């Protein structure tokens, strides 16, 4: 419970997963007071949801650089379109 819950969104997937791992270990150890274990669980759920969101957001989006006449990329377009 070192970080406040609102910090979770700033965590990378790896950090969030590590934090979740820590929460689970502490809950499993049974050393946490009952009241605290509830808030710990809430935090664990938020961490899990954050990780889940990162995984769910993953989708194949393949793009190709469209370069301008000077070779500087101006944008992208779908990779397979007209390739």
């Amino acid at each position, binding site marked *: 419970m070192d970080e406040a819950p609102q910090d979770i969104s700033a965590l990378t*997937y790896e950090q969030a997963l590590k934090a979740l791992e820590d929460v689970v270990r502490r809950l499993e150890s*049974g050393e946490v007071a*009952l009241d605290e*274990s509830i808030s710990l669980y809430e935090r664990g759920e938020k961490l899990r949801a954050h*990780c889940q969101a990162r*995984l769910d957001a993953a*989708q*194949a989006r393949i793009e190709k*650089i469209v370069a301008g006449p000077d070779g500087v990329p101006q944008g*992208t377009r779908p990779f397979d379109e007209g390739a």
Partner: protein
Amino acid sequence: MLKRTVEDRFGHVRLRGELSGVKRAASGHMYCALKDENAVIDGVMWRGNAGRLAFRPEDGVEVIATGKLTTYPGRSKYQIVIESMEIAGEGALLALLAKLKAKLEGEGLFAPERKRRLPFLPRTIGVVTSPTGAVIRDILHRLGDRFPSHVVVWPVMVQGQGSAEQVAAAVRGFSALAPGGPVPRPDLLIVARGGGSIEDLWSFNEEIVVRAIAESTIPTISAVGHETDTTLSDFAADLRAPTPTAAAEIAVPVRQELMAMLDEYAARQRRGVVRPVALARERLISWSERLPDPKTMVEAQGQRLDDLTDRLRRGLAGRAEQARRALAESGGGLRPALLQRHVVQLRRDLARVPDPGVLARKRVGEAAQALAALSRLLPQLNPYAPLERGYAVVTDPSGHAVTTREVAAMQSGLTLRFGDGTLDVTPGDSAPPAPRPRKTARRSSQDDPASGQQSLF
């Protein structure tokens, strides 16, 4: 006529030979000669083509030159106008490679401490490779299998003239992308090319590519050729993948595994939080059951109270009875006659004691008689009685009686006691010594008048 014949007859030619007499003119054109064991031909490379050369032409390097044959009428010579030129022979290439590697290594471009950690889960992956061919397909396919990702492909030529420049430009281009621009900035780069000969992979040994990769601001995986092929790009990259497919595997974790891990954590933390609650509930129940029934408690206490009340009453009655009995026993002997009898006895004992007054008076009488007898005797024993008849007692100054002449002669003074008083006399014929010590005392006090007290001694 000759010119046309030569140019028509030998339109495009490929020549293999050793470079000699390489000369770069100020105009940018390059002049040289190509020779083998028994022939030589002049060559020229115009500025545009010469600037695109992938290597620095030097004397002694064996090359394959492609170009057109033409004549140079001014010197009555024919020559080759070289359009492209590449290094021929693996030995020559490897020597060049070793030289460049040593140089870049010396600059620290391949140092292990330059290697960066790859992101665990890249949000966007930039791929520098040919847009056609199996390599990009392999990468996209493997990425899709493991973790569908956002991929931005920077299409380049991976072989032939100009490919090195394109690859380098692409790597630098990705590096230069600003976050939030029209093109998403990748957080991981893959520079990839399929397998091929050392000449095919040569672009990835070019200094320009190696430097671009080494200077990339984005962590870079190089995946050039097959497992056994190693290019300088591999040394410069943060990680070398043996194949393009392997690069995709290195780039992303398997999403399914991550999902499974998350699910497992979720289940474990649910168990972790539920189990203590269940345990606590069980414990509460078991302790509650051990609480005694309040009704039984009250009944038992009531019974005990009744019992004690009963015993209290019985106890009080018993004790009173016992006290009464004791009183009757001791009260029986308490009668006046008993006391009276005792008094009579004491009075009788008292009467038997003789009168102490009689005894005392008798003893006083006896003592008075003894005293009178002694008083009569006393005057006869007075030592001074004879003095009345003319005797005298001689004493020394300290008052002791002097009974012999010898003792008397030794005294400084004597006292004679008569019946009516005393007389001090000096014995014999010597003068009285008494004034002498008194004079001495006075003299010493004159000598020291300040301390009269001390001087007396």
